[in-house]
């Protein structure tokens, strides 16, 4: 026990040190944007339709377009003539460190806002609420998670869904045979090849993978919502002024009635580069997030 206390004291000491170092200019990010006329946006390579590449190191998606609108608003506010946006691809593993160390000014991907991450980074108000669902083969007859006991369930390494399945097993006394894909495409391949009976993942990712598959009609998304998670734009924690500027821009975008249009464009219409339709209907949870803008973490959503 003594050792633990020592560890805690040393952590506190380091925290204090960092705290004193952080008292600096009002908003480093806004200053940087103003003086250099450039900003670095963190994007994902293949999170269709939230944030993905359309080839030739161009990036697009629901969150990317919203971020471009936010940055345009900030540009006007700062009175900068032109603003160059550098796109920096990030992964699940490096996105938080890259925002922390300032490589990325604003991350527009698929990051879940939870309390663990909120200790390291700041989150803008939520504009997309993800629901974790189950994808199965259409002819499998599976309609609920209760039918998955003892079956093979695929999910992707490095995602919150792995822990979610573990919790569900414990709470309901059931046992899944988990198989782990190294990325979402790999997990979907496990379902496609019959190595897994179901694929548990964020609804938008399931819909995107199904839309991209050879025969989208062979798969369907079924069952109850296993977990609800706010997906938010990530900014630095030690720059509250920048976060306020981002949230102001978000409020403006919502007030102008842009959100339903953006949803239609990215989730219900053909999107580049392959003109697939994701086909994910607007959920009440997301609609609610637009109506009551907030930055509540995932923990607040799953309280029952």
């Amino acid at each position, binding site marked *: 026990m003594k050792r633990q206390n020592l560890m805690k004291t040393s952590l506190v000491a380091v925290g204090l040190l960092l705290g004193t170092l952080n008292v600096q200019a009002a908003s480093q990010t806004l200053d940087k944007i103003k003086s250099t006329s450039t900003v670095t946006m963190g994007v994902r390579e293949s999170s269709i339709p939230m944030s993905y590449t359309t080839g030739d190191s161009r990036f697009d998606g629901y969150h990317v377009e919203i971020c471009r609108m936010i940055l345009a608003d900030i540009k006007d506010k700062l009175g900068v003539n032109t603003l160059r946006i550098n796109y920096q691809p990030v992964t699940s593993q490096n996105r938080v460190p890259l925002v922390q160390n300032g490589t990325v000014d604003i991350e527009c991907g698929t990051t879940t806002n939870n309390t663990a991450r909120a200790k390291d980074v700041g989150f803008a108000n939520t504009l997309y609420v993800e629901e974790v669902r189950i994808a199965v083969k259409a002819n499998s007859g599976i309609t609920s998670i209760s039918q998955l006991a003892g079956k093979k369930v695929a999910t992707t390494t490095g995602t919150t869904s792995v822990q979610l399945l573990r919790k569900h097993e414990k709470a309901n006394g059931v046992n899944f045979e*988990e198989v782990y894909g190294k990325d979402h495409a790999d997990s979907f391949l496990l379902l496609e090849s019959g190595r897994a009976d179901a694929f548990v993942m964020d609804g938008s990712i399931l819909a995107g993978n199904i839309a991209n598959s050879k025969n989208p009609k062979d798969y369907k998304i079924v069952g109850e919502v296993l977990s609800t998670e706010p997906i938010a734009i990530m900014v630095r924690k030690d720059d509250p002024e920048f976060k306020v500027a981002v949230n102001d821009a978000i409020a403006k975008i919502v007030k102008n009635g842009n959100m339903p249009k953006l949803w239609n464009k990215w989730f219900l219409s053909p999107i580049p580069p392959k003109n697939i339709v994701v086909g994910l209907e607007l959920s009440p949870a997301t609609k609610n997030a637009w109506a009551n803008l907030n930055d509540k973490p995932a923990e607040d959503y799953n309280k029952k």
Partner: protein
Amino acid sequence: MALDLNIFCKSTLDGEEVDHCFSSLLGLGQNADPSYLDWLMKAWGWTLAVAGLGLAIALVLGAVMGTLRTLPDNGPMSRFLVRFSTAWVELFRNIPILVQVFLWYHVIPSFILPLKALPSYWLVSIALGFFTSARMAEQVRAGIQSLPSGQRAAATALGLTTAQSYRYVILPMALRIIIPPLTSESMNLIKNSSVAFAVSVPELTLFAMQAQEETSHGVEIYLAVTLLYALSAFAVNRVMNLIEKKTRIPGFIGASSDAGLAH
């Protein structure tokens, strides 16, 4: 950078600290919920299982294929065996290990259906074993060909058959010579077993990727995993060193330079 090692005592379900952090390791008490330490140990077990199985396959096949490559030319059968083992070596050492793992997991079972029933760690062990066997075969061949040709001639002169001359004269010498390169090859196999994460074997690398995401304490998690990999590889090194010392023949190998000190 302060390390928060308490992370390993936290439950993998709710992130709260568990009752028995270290005692669960020693079997003194059972946690109601597994901690990250429990999971780490389980993952280490998977790494060792996959690597151990792969090593067994690699040693057997490597010794056989390496020997076959040096067969003297006395008839169509031996010519076929030489060609077969050469093809084996070239096939398995010319394809990257990750690609081989995917081939064994995704492609080959769709042609050979019984393989679908095999658990994924078997398929990875086969892939690792075959890949490493090709490299070990070359070392076995090098060991055999490094022997003076008089050895083989003397064995023949004594009236030994080809099989007997390999069994009693050539292999006992050759296999002793190649213990040092075999050591590094075996240590490589432990490290290469990290590719198993790609086909859903819950081993150390998969643990690292998942646990660092759940705990956001990547530094501690990766340090622990690094330590266990290094420890496993070093254990192999020590065991091989022991074998090297035990099997040494005074006056032949390692007489001039003490291999035990060379590390």
